[in-house]
């Protein structure tokens, strides 16, 4: 037994170099494999973090849009607008009666315009109440901020992003006993969302808010992004674009 072991070790002696090289190669492969898997894991973690930040940002933007839509719904359902239609149904004219209701609506809108803020800036540029014929009965704020005709179902609240004029327009129908009798529109500046797009220490943007065709909505003065030329649509769900007018609509 002992002699056979001695013979075996003697037979390996001339190949020790090959054996050592093999062992070295194996350990190198192991190390490289380990390093690669660590890099992959790091990259996956970084990607996951970016996705997570992006999702959080998209959620914030989505919340902002929901708030604007809810505000439009709230104004459309206000007591002052209900009173206006009650008195309209009683046959009162604007000159003798409805003027008081319209003034009450105007006062409510003005207070909303003056008081509601987003990160220290006025949340709205303009608030308007339209009758069934689309005629503005109450219109407060910057008249230069245009409202938009609803593109979807006017009986449902909606959000449109006017990319060219950099506006966010929320619309809500005024419903009474199941009948649509008018609409309220709120107009906000798209630039309100600028604070949500982060920059690095040099002020260069780290994040971009993109349209579904890759147009950069924020930061301002950026052209079509090559990064997402074949990327995904707008990062917030449920917003669609009116290609003819360059607007996005949220269902």
């Amino acid at each position, binding site marked *: 037994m002992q002699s056979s072991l001695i013979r075996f070790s003697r037979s390996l002696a001339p190949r020790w170099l090959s054996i050592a090289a093999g062992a070295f190669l194996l350990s190198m492969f192991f190390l490289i494999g380990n390093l690669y898997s660590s890099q992959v894991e790091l990259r996956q973690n970084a990607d996951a973090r970016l996705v997570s930040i992006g999702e959080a940002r998209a959620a914030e933007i989505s919340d902002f849009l929901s708030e604007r839509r809810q505000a439009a719904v709230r104004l459309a359902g206000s007591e002052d607008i209900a009173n206006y239609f009650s008195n309209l149904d009683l046959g009162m004219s604007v*000159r003798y009666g409805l003027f*008081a209701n319209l003034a009450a609506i105007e006062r409510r809108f003005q207070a909303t315009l003056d008081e509601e803020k987003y990160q220290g800036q006025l949340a709205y540029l303009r608030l308007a109440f339209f009758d069934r014929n689309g005629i503005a009965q109450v219109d407060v704020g910057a008249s230069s901020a245009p409202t938009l005709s609803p593109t979807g179902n006017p009986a449902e609240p909606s959000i449109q992003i006017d990319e060219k004029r950099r506006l966010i327009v929320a619309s809500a129908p005024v419903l009474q006993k199941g009948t649509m009798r008018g609409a309220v529109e709120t107009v906000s500046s798209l630039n309100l969302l600028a604070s949500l797009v982060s920059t690095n220490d040099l002020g260069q943007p780290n994040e971009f808010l993109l349209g579904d065709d890759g147009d950069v909505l924020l930061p301002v003065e950026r052209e079509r992004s090559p990064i997402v030329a074949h990327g995904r649509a707008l990062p917030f769900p449920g917003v669609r674009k009116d290609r003819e007018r360059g607007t996005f609509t949220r269902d």
Partner: protein
Amino acid sequence: MLSKRIVLGSLSGAMAFLFVTSSWAADLAEIKQRGEIRHIGIRYANFVTGAGDGLDVELMQGFAKRIGVSYKLVYSDFYSVIRDLLGKDVVRKDGEVTLTGDYPVKGDVISTGFTMLPWREAILLYSDPVLPSQVLLVAPAESELQPIEDGADLAADIANTRKVIGSKSVLVMERTCLDPTNYGLVNVGIDLKAYNKSANLNEMVPAMLNKEAELTLLDVPDAILDLRKWAGRIKILGPISGRQMLATAFPKDAPALRDEFNAYLSDIKAAGVYDRLVDKYYPGIRRFFPEFFAKTD
């Protein structure tokens, strides 16, 4: 004995002085000397709310500050407001206005959404207009009467509104801006019901809804508030009067006080204070009287 007479004499002299100074309506110099202006107001709409504020309360507080005196609000009602200013009762008969009796003077100025009416102008000095107004005809929401359609001119609107009344009863309040004699509604076959449970114009709509009459008169400042308060329960049928002006009233012998008030009113209009007060207490009145407020904008 002599000292007792002197004391009694001094006391009666002091009493007489106090009575005289408190019973005189005063002009600007006397008010400045007294150091206090007494504002006679009636709890009515948002002119004098009764809670220590109102359009006229804030106007007069600002005026008191301007002339450097303290401010005192004296409450009155539409039946006795002129008596409280002049110390005389007002009798209107056959188009004549006479002042009778002697009563304590309780204030220096009436400022309470006080309508400028010809018979009042015969016995009072009015300031420049403070606010426009108009008297409207109001019905319960369920009334079969329909509001008039906006006509080409106000005269046509008034005529159409009067036609609407027909045989319906109308609630009115004498000696106020809702006095039917001011608008030719007496002795023309209209069933007038004088509301005399109180002199508070704020009770006209509740009284009508309580079936004390089928219709009521209401002025525009009150209508602005009541259309919100009673939304869906009342409707305005149309105008009963032409445009009226509400102003601050002074005794005839207080022209300097009136002139100073006019200067004050002009200044606060220029400074934007007046507009802020109007928007605070009567939001919407600009829509009703755009021509009046166009001058002040």
